[in-house]
């Protein structure tokens, strides 16, 4: 497997006195897809949000341990600079309603005050929308509002918005749970293509989805990382009984 781009070392996370993530260590090889699975409330979304330090938006939290991005401890970096290097896509599509499709893709640059020439903008927009498999559908109406698109298209627009910043890592928090099966299939196939250039870390409730597209699967339960390994191994010979029961649909 490829060398690791991101490693989590003994991560602990508390909200007030609730211990949400318990001594979690996990590494992510470059240009692979990792699926984080587990029943609701197991801490998987919280863990994902620690990676780009979005957890800092919640008050009264405490974090211990290290997360290293290419060897650098992310808690020592500037949070805003870190988030420019790590893209994030949310559960519900959330394009900016006041912006056109074109400006939504460029939002990362606009919101960081980075000025670009017309040519650079056009190039970034076309590249990101092509990567997000949306270019052909929207190229005729780039200056329409992004909120006119269908749910699946909006989510691909959000992926394009994240990709436009050319991140090394893309975090996805149940990106297809609000979409219909067709839109889901579309996003899955685009994620498979993305992993040539980006490391994808995805929280999902969809067991079949994890087995279809991920290289590595991690299973969390009650804040702990129970087991992780290649997706093939996890789905065929899980070591822990809880993993087996969850992945075969006995609980969750």
């Amino acid at each position: 497997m490829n060398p690791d781009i991101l490693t989590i070392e003994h991560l602990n996370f508390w909200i007030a006195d609730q211990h949400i993530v318990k001594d979690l260590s996990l590494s992510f090889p470059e240009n692979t897809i990792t699926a984080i699975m587990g029943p609701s409330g197991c801490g998987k979304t919280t863990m994902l949000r620690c990676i780009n330090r979005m957890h800092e938006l919640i008050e009264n939290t405490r974090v211990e341990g290290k997360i290293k991005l290419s060897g650098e401890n992310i808690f020592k970096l500037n949070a805003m600079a870190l988030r420019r290097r790590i893209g994030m896509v949310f559960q519900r599509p959330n394009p900016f309603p006041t912006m056109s499709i074109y400006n939504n893709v460029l939002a990362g640059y606009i919101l960081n005050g980075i000025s670009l020439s017309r040519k650079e903008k056009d190039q970034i927009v076309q590249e990101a929308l092509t990567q997000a498999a949306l270019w052909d559908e929207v190229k005729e109406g780039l200056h329409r509002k992004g909120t006119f698109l269908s749910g699946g298209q909006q989510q691909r627009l959000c992926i394009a918005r994240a990709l436009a910043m050319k991140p090394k890592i893309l975090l996805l928090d149940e990106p297809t749970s609000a979409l219909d099966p067709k839109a889901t299939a579309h996003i899955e196939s685009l994620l498979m293509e993305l992993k040539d250039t980006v490391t994808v870390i995805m929280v999902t409730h969809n067991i079949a989805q994890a087995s279809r597209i991920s290289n590595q699967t991690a299973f969390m339960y009650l804040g702990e990382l129970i087991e992780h390994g290649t997706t093939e191994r996890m789905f065929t010979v899980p070591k822990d009984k809880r993993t087996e029961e969850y992945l075969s649909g006995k609980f969750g």
Partner: protein
Amino acid sequence: MRTGHETWRQCKNNAFHGLIILFSAILFLPLAAIIFHILKNGLHVLSWEFLTALPKPMGESGGGVGNAIAGTLLLIVLSSLIAIPIGIFTGVYLSENTHGKFSHIIHVAVDMLQGTPSIVIGIAAYIWIVKPMGHFSAFSGGVALALMMLPVIIKSTEETLKRIPNTLKEAALALGAPYYRTMLQIIIPTGFQGILTGVLLGIARVSGESAPLLFTAFGNPFLNLNMNKTVQALPLLIFNYATSPYEDWQAYAWGSSCLLLIFILSLTLLTKAIRPQ
């Protein structure tokens, strides 16, 4: 027996429905009466001369209320310049900080400001500005009106921004955007319609106020656009002319009331039209 009971219940139901409609209709009556009365007495006074000319000295016929219209517009601009930025930023703060002692204090302060009688606000502006400066001024009137606009703008900004899904803010922050750009470039523009509604309601509220202007803008019979000097305003003019013994002045008070009513009603209808669903 059973059907009789059912019929009785049906009767009570109908009576209740009727009562609700009746009271709603009663609410409409005074409004209709006011509008009718003012239009009947005021509409025929309106003319190009009335809108543009300055008041003539007593005893001469003709003239208009151009100075009061200009003064009211000046006061609206002054108060908006003060109240809009403060109101929007306070609204942003309150929408972002729902817990905590400071935001609670601000909430209470906004409620109290809203409940303060307008005459008291006028006196406050007199003590703060007119006395130290030594003279009445449009500026002091603008400050008094701004204080009256603030709660309206703050509350509508707060309510509007609270309804914007948190995930939009997260999306912007996750792109590495600083907090101030997230608020200024994403959240406030997304809530623009709601904020504008609040601003227009605030303007509608203060443009008919006379009490805060009695000790501040004071009124004068000339055209003035200097914010350091006294300025006439439509509500002040109505107050002065309506209490005068001269018939043509009273007619002008009707005309000015009519003008003010049309202005405020249009603003209110406009806010209804742009209010986000």
